[in-house]
């Protein structure tokens, strides 16, 4: 065993002979070369410059798997125990690259293509045309604007969820029953909510909510008739489904706060409001921010209720980005443009979420 180096963490003697290292290097680079060769050959065939009789891309896939195995093996051969440590991460990293990075790259390739499934010419690279089309597409901008409104609704949802969580955290009768009851909407599929609430209870002639509205003096109740009301109704239905999710997270946070803190505040003469605002709320900030961010991620995916209830109408008033992309992709088979819209949306989400997380981090630190 070596008497030098990192004796605390290294447990096996690394007696790396030169031939072993050379062999490791050889299989690594050999497999990489083979992968490059097969991929190049298949690319040449696809572009019509060479005819090698490949029918699928499987040879490249097999070469990739071989290269991945040789890469891992080569690490051990060349670097001994250090290489074995790398094995804890490398396969997972390669797996992620295969399932996330490659598809993303292919997605980008499609996003910059003119590809309508009905077109006999198939996929054609069209540079920035899709981006230009997006820039002048009023439907997409309208959907993005709607998403801003939908996202802002989370503030209200949060306030309601916090209120409910406080109630359920208090010593009230039937607390367990209410905890389960309030969770029920979350257990429903949004598609079921669309049909049960949006299409049945809100049906304007016979739906119970429409009848109630009439009984309360609204002569001709219309829940999806005008742009504003329709958007608000969608927000309410979505909120009804997901407020329990925020509520349960906040409730868990509330239960983790030691009771002594409130008691100490009360001994110091704090009113219930001050006790909440100066003690509970700041302590709940990390949980709140997590709940809001996760809720935001859910919200950005909002599509099912809209597709089922309004199809984006009236006149695009309730369209979300996802429901618009769904129509572009599924109803119009416009794969290239639809993919670009999704990619742009992804970039916008990443930027927005990063800014939000930075702000949240700064804000919690200040408090």
């Amino acid at each position: 065993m070596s008497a030098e180096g990192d004796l605390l963490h290294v447990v096996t003697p690394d007696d790396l002979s030169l031939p072993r290292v050379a062999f490791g290097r050889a299989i690594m680079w050999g497999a990489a070369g083979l992968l490059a060769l097969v991929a190049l050959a298949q690319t040449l065939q696809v572009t019509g410059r060479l005819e090698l009789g490949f029918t699928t891309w499987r040879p490249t896939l097999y070469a990739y798997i071989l290269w991945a195995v040789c890469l891992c093996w080569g690490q051990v051969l060349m670097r001994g125990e250090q290489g074995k440590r790398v094995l804890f991460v490398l396969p997972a990293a390669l797996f992620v690259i295969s399932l996330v990075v490659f598809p993303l790259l292919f997605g980008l390739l499609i996003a910059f293509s003119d590809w309508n499934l009905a077109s006999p010419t198939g996929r054609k690279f069209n540079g920035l045309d899709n981006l230009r089309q997006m820039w002048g597409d009023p439907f997409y901008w309208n959907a993005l604007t709607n998403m801003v409104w939908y996202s802002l609704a989370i503030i209200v949802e949060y306030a309601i969820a916090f209120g409910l969580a406080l109630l359920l955290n208090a010593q009230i009768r039937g607390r367990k029953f209410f905890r389960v009851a309030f969770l029920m909407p979350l257990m429903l599929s949004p598609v079921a909510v669309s049909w049960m609430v949006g299409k049945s209870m809100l049906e304007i002639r016979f739906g119970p909510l429409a009848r109630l509205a009439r009984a309360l003096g609204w002569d001709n109740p219309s829940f999806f008739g005008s742009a504003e009301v329709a958007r608000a109704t969608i927000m309410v239905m979505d909120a009804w489904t997901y407020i329990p999710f925020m509520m349960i997270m906040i409730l868990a946070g509330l239960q983790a706060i030691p009771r002594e803190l409130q008691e100490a505040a009360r001994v110091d003469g704090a009113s219930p409001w001050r006790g909440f605002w100066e003690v509970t709320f700041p302590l709940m900030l990390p949980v709140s921010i997590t709940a809001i961010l996760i809720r935001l991620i859910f919200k950005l995916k909002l599509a099912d209720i809209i597709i089922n209830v309004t199809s984006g109408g009236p006149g695009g008033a309730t369209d979300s980005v996802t429901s618009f992309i769904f129509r572009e992709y599924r109803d119009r088979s416009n794969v290239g443009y639809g993919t670009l819209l999704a990619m742009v949306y992804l970039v916008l989400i990443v930027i927005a979420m990063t800014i939000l997380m930075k702000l949240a981090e700064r804000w919690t630190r200040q408090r």
Partner: protein
Amino acid sequence: MKVELYNHVVRSGLTRRRLLQGAASIGSLAAMGGLGVSRAALAQADVRAAILAIPGVGAGSPTDADWQKVGEMTLAATRANVAEGEFAGVELTFMGLNNQNLHNFLFRGFLKPWEAYTGAKINWIDLAQADYNPRLQQAIATGTVDFDIIEMGAPFEGDTASKGLLDEMPDWVKVQIDMDDYVGYLKAPVGTWDGKTYRISIDGDCHSFAYRKDYLTDAAISAATGMTEAPTTWQQVQAFSNAVKGQKDPLTGLDAYGFLDPLKGWGGFGFYFLEDRASAYAKHPDDPAWLFDPDTMKPRVNNPAWVQAIQDVMDTMPVLPPDQINADPGTTAFQQFLAGTGAMICWWGDVGSSARTSDGSVVGDVVGFSINPGSDRVYNARTAAWETPATPNFAPNMAYLGWGVYVTSRVTADEKKRKAAWSAAAHLGGKDIALWMAAYPSGFQPYRNSQFNYDEWEAAGYDRAFIEDYLGSNLDSYNHPNAAIEPRIPGIFQYYSVAEDELAKGFGGTYKSAQETADAIAAAWEKITDQIGRDSQIALYKASLGM
């Protein structure tokens, strides 16, 4: 037959005695009516009467055993063209739907005796309706067609036949399935491309006009509208809809409404309902084209005829039920018309079959049917001028054209497999099996003239008046000389889908006028045409029109 219709007949209390009467009359028809009739015709009449007794109208829903029995009893045509065991070792893949546990489920039963006789084996790909289009489009786009026989709607012929993915029908199949028996609109050019035939029809589809007869007999409403007969033109429909405002519905006592326009999209299918109005204005008897100019593929959707149709809808909006902006065709049919709101609607046969069979329907006894309304004037796109014919211009809308069975070009190179595939498809598209499919729950509507022989239906135990009323309006539309036939070009539903989006903006007030709305649709259609390829679309559009 649609499931609801069948259930109604079952519920309407068909007694065993009535059933036996029916069977006896069929028997006597077969025995006595044969004077001067050939032995073959007699045998066929026997078969038709016999299969209609499986399991017997009113004897519960048919099961797999019944489907197999029907498949066995209608195998004579196959026996005439195929030797026993001729297809031993052949394996075929059949892609179709599994809606309501019908479609493919029936086909399996029907084809089991065929498999036993011919020795072939069929593998099945069952798809839900919503998965069908993406699955088909992706298979085409990625070159991974993995089925030999496919159940497919005619609108998709543009996506498949135009790309050489289908196999041309051999002549012996045409004879076996008796194609001359097809109703008018399902004959060529439907089912053909460049003069070649590809489709075995198993279903028919069209829109027809359903109206409330009590709106025409109610004294107060008639006084307001001045009409005691059903309107036959869109001009009359408009006048009726405007005049009926303020009256009370004779059935429900709630506010009365005239014609029901769906203002919300329906995944592309909503556009058919604007077509109902537009076809009367835009489908000139001398011109097969009405959606695009066949020489340039320039949309006609913003010509004066279509703008008139959009304007009609916009004019009607103030007298439509509240919240109509959020009503799709499903709502107008099932939640409004059948539930007692509104006097008139254009829809597929479902409204007819559900009117008396659905629990949600209250209009069963007061509903009447006719072909879609016509127009006093028709636009001639070639001369760019309105014409006023001596009689109104009628152009019933053959929306969707119905399901068919097609064989793909995967089998073309292998003559044995090809014959097997066509034999299987022809068995499903046979004349006698068609009668059974129309009479029992199958998901398919009549598509042959021989299916409209009401005596057979009556003998089998159906209520004649009901069947005549339900089927008569369909028959009139099917065989109309100026029927507006759907263009079977690639991506036709893309055009419909984007048109729905633009129409929603027009109805929602984003666009200032009907013309501006129509122009927006036309611009979007031009984009799709350019993307798919204008030259190929022109060629395919002409081919689909038989030009």
